[in-house]
């Protein structure tokens, strides 16, 4: 097998909630550990050349934190990240190379500088890092605008002059301008209307086809994930619970959480669905349940689910899941 573009091994991220000085002192005197949030808890995954990996999960599952660690804008608390086999420490230190991984954010209004013209937003990094000679930067920006379906005169306008969909195109152009190999899209179309969403998805598919870049597409929208991705990782409370090829995952989900997620997915159909009873709510990431995080809501949970953490095991080539009752859920 060829080397993956990106690889994460046992990547974790721990946050310490903000606490007052008194609280900290109290904790220290009483010998208590301050509460920790394991936003991402030992996640292992990889993306190969030209592949689109989907990461799906509900709020609080750590998918955005993982995205930021992959993009290199958030350090890890543990584990290893590799770009084409090279560790992230040395990779990120060479600024020009670090541009190979780019991110597209959910809200273009808060990720685009409102005081810069679109031309400056798109051209800034490319010029600074010498991706294109400064003399040619204007022409390059126009070409990039063209690629994302924006008119050339957008170059001298400000982000607020555009609609939501167009702003997201600017965000994509900004990322593309430095010629990345890996594009991390974090809920990049979640805030857009259905018709605009379709336009942006098509644009991303065009870009992928033209330049063969790899993509990590993070979303809570199972329909989009199914449409766009080659493989999908399902996350729950900081951990990957199932990882499989898209068709395999949607036709033969084996983890009880994935099954529940797919059952809850609203679908356009005229059949009145009988709702599967869903137990409880997502627990707080501050105090996740012990053992398998999902066991309090799981219909197949047994005694050892509350004490042992399930590791990812391979069920079929390319299909892994983290469930202690694999035999029970396989059919």
């Amino acid at each position, binding site marked *: 097998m060829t080397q993956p573009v990106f690889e994460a091994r046992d990547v974790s991220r721990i946050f310490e909630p903000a606490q007052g000085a008194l609280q900290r002192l109290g904790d220290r005197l009483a010998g208590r550990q301050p509460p920790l949030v394991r936003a991402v808890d030992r996640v292992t995954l990889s993306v190969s050349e030209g592949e689109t990996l989907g990461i799906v999960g509900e709020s609080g599952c750590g998918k955005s934190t993982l995205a930021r660690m992959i993009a290199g804008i958030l350090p890890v608390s543990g584990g290893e990240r590799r770009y084409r086999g090279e560790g992230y420490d040395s990779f990120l230190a060479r600024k020009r190379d670090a541009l190979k991984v780019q991110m597209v954010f959910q809200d273009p209004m808060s990720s685009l500088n409102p005081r810069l013209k679109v031309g400056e937003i798109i051209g800034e990094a490319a010029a600074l890092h010498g991706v294109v000679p400064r003399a040619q930067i204007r022409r390059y920006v126009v070409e990039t605008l063209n690629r994302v379906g924006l008119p050339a005169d957008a170059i001298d306008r400000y982000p607020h002059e555009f609609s939501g969909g167009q702003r997201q195109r600017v965000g994509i152009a900004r990322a593309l301008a430095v010629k990345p190999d890996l594009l991390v899209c974090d809920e990049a179309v979640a805030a857009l209307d259905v*018709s605009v969403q379709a336009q942006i998805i098509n644009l991303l598919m065009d870009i992928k086809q033209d330049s063969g870049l790899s993509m990590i597409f993070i979303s809570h929208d199972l329909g989009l994930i199914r449409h766009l991705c080659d493989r999908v990782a399902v996350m729950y409370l900081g951990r990957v619970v199932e990882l499989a090829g898209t068709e395999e995952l949607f036709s033969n989900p084996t983890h009880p959480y994935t099954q529940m997620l797919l059952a809850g997915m609203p*679908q356009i159909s*005229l059949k009145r669905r009988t709702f599967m009873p869903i137990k409880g709510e997502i627990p707080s990431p501050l105090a996740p349940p012990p053992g398998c995080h999902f066991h309090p809501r799981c219909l197949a949970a047994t005694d050892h689910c509350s004490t042992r953490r399930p590791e990812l095991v391979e069920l079929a080539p390319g299909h892994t899941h983290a469930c202690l009752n694999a035999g029970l859920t396989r059919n």
Partner: protein
Amino acid sequence: MSEAFFEVSGLNTWFFTRTGTFKSVRDVSFSLRRGEVLGIVGESGSGKSVTGMSIMGQVDEPGRIVSGSIKLDGEELTTLSFDAMRHYRGRRIAMVFQNPLMTLNPLMRIRDQMFEAISEHEPASHAEMQSRCIDALRSVGIPSPEDRLSAYPHELSGGMRQRVVIAIALLLNPDLIIADEPTTALDVTIQAQIIHQMRRQIDERGLGMIWITHDLATLSELADRILVMYAGAMMETGTTADIIGSSRHPYTRKLLESVPSLNVPGEKLRQIRGSMPSLLTLGAGCPFKDRCEFATEACAEAVPERVFSATHRVWCHHPIEDDR
């Protein structure tokens, strides 16, 4: 089927700003029977939320209802005074918004907020209010409601908060609930639970509901009838089967076709070209004509209403005749 108890006809709600007049809602009419869910679907700027606000009598300056009528059990609401309308809001018509933190007071316990809603309209004894609150919370699937009463909103999860808002809306047994994107901000599993519980409440209590959303998939599972809006105007209305199964308006078709699950995975999504026109410069013709593949010169003229069945009506010069 019972008679319609709620009727909107010829509603026009416009906003008069310095840049010009935004005709956010133009000639919108619909009716609702008890026990029925009407879904209003549209993208941003379609006028679906302004329609909801107009019914609640909560259109703020510089907007106002320019013409049209809104009738609940035969009584005209648009001409009511502010105080008279207050009597209706909450008690007979309740509203649920997308963001529960907008509705809930962060400084008040759930109990106090619920008691306030009751005592404002129908003062009752403490014990009676307590038991009504617990019943309402239980009916929307909140576990151990007795304990939740003393919680503050921030102590509850997003899904729980939205359930509390819905419980407050149900508290006074209203005739009509208007829900504006009530589950959009919630996770899939929670959304499915809430929709299921809403449907049960509607069937059990025989109340009418207007569910405003951009999400056709949710509506196909919940609504009895659907009204499709675009740029302030009605495009198509019919039973859920009419709209999902045999839509006639090119816009409805396009909207359905751009939903990923109705496309072949890995292929490009069928998209709608262009973007929504400005509400400032709309002429008499069809607002969708610039994006429509069937548009002709006729589409610049006033749009005719085409009746396909007793339930199914379309506003279009060139409705699609064949089934999908």
